[in-house]
């Protein structure tokens, strides 16, 4: 194609048609080239490792959203120590209680953060700890209830200084 077919200031006619063809062809090529790499992602992109770790816990059960409250600051300066509290809305009676609380992350070297086992003896399904986060990412808390259902909450956390970056002397 010579240069005159590309700029857009010429009028209607043979040249414009040529240009249209060129653009059409370019568009087809771009789509064809990009198609194999385009994948449909969920609204919250969750790397495969975390999904695999969650699937290991939940098995075939459905993971619902709700009941769990993951309390973690949305903006963190130092990823080495991030306060993190998980509270599950449950009466904690022998008939209806929280069996376990799991926390997962998506960008640390490992997806697991903590797995805690509770019982009706706990009285209140609430735990807190301090965790390390290497990068800006999504944290997911999963609660396993005594009836076999799984509930979750996710929070996006922005990290200014990630853990694991500094080297010890």
């Amino acid at each position, binding site marked *: 194609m010579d240069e005159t077919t590309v700029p857009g200031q010429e009028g209607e006619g043979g040249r414009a048609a040529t240009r249209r063809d060129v653009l059409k062809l370019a568009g087809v090529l771009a789509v064809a080239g990009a198609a194999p790499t385009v994948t449909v992602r969920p609204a919250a992109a969750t790397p495969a490792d975390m999904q695999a770790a969650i699937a290991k816990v939940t098995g075939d059960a459905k993971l619902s959203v709700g009941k769990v409250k993951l309390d973690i600051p949305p903006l963190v300066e130092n990823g*080495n*120590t*991030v306060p993190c*509290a998980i509270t599950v809305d449950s009466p904690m009676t022998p008939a209806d209680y929280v069996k376990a609380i799991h926390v997962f*992350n998506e960008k*640390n*070297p*490992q997806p*697991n*953060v*903590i*797995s*805690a*086992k*509770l*019982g009706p*003896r*706990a*009285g*209140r*399904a*609430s*735990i*807190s*700890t*301090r*965790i*390390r*986060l290497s990068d800006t990412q999504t944290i997911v808390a999963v609660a396993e209830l005594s009836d076999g259902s799984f509930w979750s909450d996710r929070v996006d956390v922005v990290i200014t200084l990630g*853990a*694991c970056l500094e*080297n*010890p*002397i």
Partner: protein
Amino acid sequence: MARALINVPPKAKRGEVIAIKTLIAHVMESGFRHTNTGVAIPRDIITGFVATYNGEEIFRADLYPAIAANPFLTFHTVATESGTIEFKWTGDNGYSATEQVKITVE
């Protein structure tokens, strides 16, 4: 013996839900860091925590390298009777630490 801080209310009413806070001094070396000369630092973390109330297990947690240094854990339990609450941490390289706290239930 490792240095541990444990916060349990010394007195509680029967049936009351009490909060228990524990903190233990530990580096929690993740195993993902390297020295300045590029040598990998081996992992050294606490992997397990168990709390028992008069011998009955009330709380258990598996910890991973993503837990910050000096692991801090808060959880709850129902004060049923006077006695001892025992805490046990276990970890890499045969690490083990135990602490006991007395509680009076009225």
